[in-house]
């Protein structure tokens, strides 16, 4: 092989590797769901609104349109954002509203039926106060679909099952449950949150796929000072 040919081959090979590395870095390492920023309202509180969907849609989540997922409402635009990353101010009351567009799925461990870490140790299914939900007690009337838990602050709330299952998230119809609760944010830091219902459809033990992917059933609450 002539010298120019060798130089050309080497250059092309180098560029292929460089482009591949850049793609991996940009697409996988630096990529990820966006972060929704919440700040305190004039009342000094944060109103965080989320929804759960039995399945998102190809338009919203082209990479995994059938996965169960949370969505977070952007407070500035009102749009539903496919993410599980949000920021809130430290030492602030956060009023959470979760619209449940999924059916019921039992908990694997009923200990997460209990509401913990909220103000008053209570959550509200609509207007009904709940301290211990029916995550599964041997009868078919269990009434939860997912949980919202931040283990770092011992927050755990079972989410009321919806009247139906919406398969085209983010959903905007009125066929949803409404779970509300409030909690105080801790000091600044990053706190992971997750669902404790093994709702990863068709994955081993229900804990794969959306349960292990940030942007679906788990994410981070970043508390800023």
């Amino acid at each position, binding site marked *: 092989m002539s010298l120019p040919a060798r130089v050309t081959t080497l250059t092309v090979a180098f560029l292929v590797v460089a482009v591949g590395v850049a793609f991996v870095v940009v697409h996988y390492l630096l990529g990820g769901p966006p972060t929704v920023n919440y700040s305190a309202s004039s009342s000094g509180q944060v109103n965080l609104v989320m929804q759960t969907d039995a399945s998102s849609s190809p338009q919203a989540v082209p990479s995994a349109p059938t996965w169960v997922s949370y969505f977070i409402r952007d407070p500035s635009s009102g749009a539903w954002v496919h993410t599980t990353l949000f920021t809130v101010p430290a030492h602030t009351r956060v009023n959470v509203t979760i619209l449940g567009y999924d059916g019921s799925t039992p908990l694997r461990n009923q200990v997460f039926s209990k509401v913990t870490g909220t103000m008053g140790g209570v959550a509200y299914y609509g207007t009904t106060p709940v301290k*211990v939900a029916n995550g599964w007690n*041997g009868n078919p009337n269990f009434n939860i679909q997912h949980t919202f838990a931040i283990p770092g602050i011992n927050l755990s709330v079972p989410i009321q099952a919806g009247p139906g299952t919406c398969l085209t998230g983010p959903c905007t119809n009125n066929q949803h449950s409404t779970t509300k609760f409030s909690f105080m944010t801790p000091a600044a830091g990053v706190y992971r949150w997750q669902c404790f219902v093994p709702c990863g*459809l*068709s*994955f*081993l033990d*229900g*804990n794969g796929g959306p349960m292990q992917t*940030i942007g679906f059933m788990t994410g981070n609450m970043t508390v800023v000072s």
Partner: protein
Amino acid sequence: MAATTSAPAESGQREPNHGLRIFLIWLPLALAADLIIWFVWGPHLPPGDLGSAAQGQQFDISVMAVMAAPVMIFVLAYAAYALIVWRHREGDDEDGPPIHGNARISATWIGVTAAIVLSLFVFGTYELVVPAGAGAGEGNTPIWTPGGTPLQVQVIGQQWRWTYRYPQFGGFETTALVLPVGQEIQFNVTSLDVIHSFSAYQLGVKADANPDVNNVAYTKTLAAGTVQVRCFELCGLWHADMTTVGHVVSVSAFKAWAAASKVQLAALTKILPPYSLTYDPNSVAQLGQAFVKAGLSGAGGNYYGAQYPVQP
């Protein structure tokens, strides 16, 4: 090291007793190192002395360090001596004297190292057996058990949190690990999904948490304090975050906590499955009945039904 010269030095000078010199250098250094290790460093070695298993592990590490230090110091002293005394000198271009074997030194070397290794084997076995498994998981039929009636604490691993059940207090389950001081503890470790590994670091306890398996580990709490609980088996996205801070408290404080928890968690305890050494999430009868009656299929194993084949 076993080298000897075949003839006196050509200069006619008597060769000094290098072995004695090295020994005299080594002896005070090794003695000082062992005293420092035992009395100064030893009490601060991990994992501490909050539990009997941890205390035993600290003792074991101290003993091994005391045994290892003289060996290491001998190697370093010999190397330093050789570099200084037998270094190449200006104008000396002769080869070194021929080397022959030395049966006495070889036998001493083999004998000493064999004695060290065999004694460590005996010591290690003894230290594993006598303190009831030394804090390690012994499986569901432990061979080495402590006497008396230990406090039963069930450790349940799940992605990604530890929970604890106290069967001797009504079987309540909580995310808090609280233990009384001066009490023999029996950890019954299991998992609801994948393999985890329960580590209560300051107690010296580490036991794998496998689904469908009860893995028993023992320790005795010796002092009040905090215990860092971690998962030592890579178990998914939030493995590194699967931590808890446990507390060893006075007996009276523990009894008060347990009594209060039993009352506060009574409503929750009612809907927990009956206490069992293992819980198979895919074959729990009540769960299956609930699904059938509701016309549902759920996550995990046969959770979802045949139309959704399980992917690893």
